[in-house]
């Protein structure tokens, strides 16, 4: 059960799909114009990812490993068609909003990546936990980016106006450049936080941070101390 919780929570921060693994960036950039479409896309991916992980894990000992990729794609394509039809039936406005990006979930790197890297090697319950965790992390990230872009770019959050009267929407945020800008700044902030944590840890234990991207020569920290 401990392992189950571990697989469930790793997707929420440690391996947060778009921001840590940098997987599935196409929907992250394309459908985060508003928080609600971010949530919708995230839920669709959560559904597909969990079920595809489960099915891939169930068939992992049955299919020959040479054709496993094709099998994973078939599984996810089946699920995506199901999601598409369900969306058309029960959430038609959302379906119109997401457009081509719903069918494109099939080729989303996260789906295939998790099936190949995790579900193909682990038992069913862990694969489900992994799918739920990753899907929730993905939903969180999309909602986060969508909220920033919607609040700055349109002055609303989930369709409700949240800014003061006379607020001039920052229109570039809902355009394509705004997506890159938001993603880049978010990544920079997360990297900065990670780097700082590593530095703090290395200063406490006087050991070099092996995982630091620059190899951990501590030069930057020394230069900063000097100032």
């Amino acid at each position: 059960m401990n392992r189950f919780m571990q697989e469930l929570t790793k997707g929420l921060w440690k391996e947060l799909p778009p921001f840590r693994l940098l997987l599935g960036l196409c929907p992250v950039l394309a459908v985060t114009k508003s928080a609600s479409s971010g949530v919708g896309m995230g839920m669709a991916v959560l559904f597909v990812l969990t079920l595809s992980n489960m099915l891939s894990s169930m068939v992992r000992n049955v299919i020959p490993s040479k054709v496993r990729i094709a099998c994973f794609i078939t599984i996810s394509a089946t699920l995506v068609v199901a999601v598409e039809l369900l969306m058309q039936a029960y959430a038609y406005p959302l379906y119109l909003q997401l457009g081509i990006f719903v069918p494109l979930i099939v080729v989303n790197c996260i789906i295939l990546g998790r099936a190949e890297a995790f579900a193909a090697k682990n038992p069913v319950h862990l694969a489900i936990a992994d799918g739920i965790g990753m899907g929730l992390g993905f939903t969180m990230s999309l909602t986060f980016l969508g909220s920033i872009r919607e609040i700055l770019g349109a002055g609303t959050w989930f369709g409700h106006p949240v800014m003061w009267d006379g607020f001039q929407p920052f229109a570039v945020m809902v355009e394509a450049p705004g997506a890159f800008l938001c993603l880049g700044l978010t990544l920079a902030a997360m990297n900065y936080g990670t780097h700082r944590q590593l530095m703090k840890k290395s200063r406490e234990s006087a050991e070099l941070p092996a995982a630091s991207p620059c190899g951990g020569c501590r030069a930057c920290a020394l230069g900063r101390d000097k100032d």
Partner: protein
Amino acid sequence: MSQSNNDILLAISTPPFWHCGRTIRQNSLHTLLALAPAAALSLIQWGVPAARVMALSMVAAIVTEAVCQILMKQKLSQDNGTAAVTGLALAFLLPASAPWWLTLIAAVCAMGVGRMAFGGYGANQVNAALVGWALVFVSFPIPMDPNAAVLHTSLADPLFRAKFFGGAAAADFPLADLLLGRQLGGLGATQTGALFLGGLYLALRGVIRWEIPCAFLAGTFLVASAFHLADPELYAGPLFHIFSGSTVFAAFFLATEDSCCPHRRLPMTLYGLTGGALVMLIRVFGVYADGAPFAVMLINLLAPMFALIRSHPFGTGPRKAKRTSDNEGRARS
């Protein structure tokens, strides 16, 4: 290495190096001096609104840089004047009728996103002033449009005329008027005559490399001539395009920011020519009337590619130091 040497860091940078006894501070003071005539002329033309925009933009840029440097635990470097230059360059691109919040957002974005997010002066890939300008220009098209009614002026934007009424409408604007800045547009960027003189001063002082503005203006001239010769009714002449809008400002002050341009003669020439040609292409085919700032942003991004052209380290490679641009050297290398 002993413990005491540990805090001495070896700064490594790549060739080519330029030898001059100047400091960053002196360079920015020279740049401010070169911008001064244009600023004075724009003050005469637009009055208090222009002074307001310029002052707010410079102050906001300097304060943003200071705040970012404090947050990033860097040494404060406001005394070298680069933030002031960026703020003034940004103000030159804004219309004199820009509301205060627009100027503030532009300046904060220019220094925050355009420069400090990359690590500070010299680390930015794209001219910082242009980043701020582009963000507000795309976001707020209505306040960014110089409003003749608010500014109590009867001047018109020559580029709008040329774009929407054909090249023949460019005849409404005598060259002397364009040179003296009697045109609607960015508050300082349209003072083309004064900016041209200021740019010449910078090039003669060696603060900027003369190759870049020369090639930039040459590129604009060549492509504009080609269009003009093809259909003089539809496309205005080359001199009109050079001295209207912000072409001169872009050539001398924006394209030459040290961290964003290549540094050898052939790459610099190609860089400038590409920029000049892009100005015309955007003006003719693009949705915006003035393409110069966007052209500069594009060539800024291409600068690392240009820098790869014949990038032999000093003392190696088949070419001699003198043969940088002639055909013989090109054939050999």
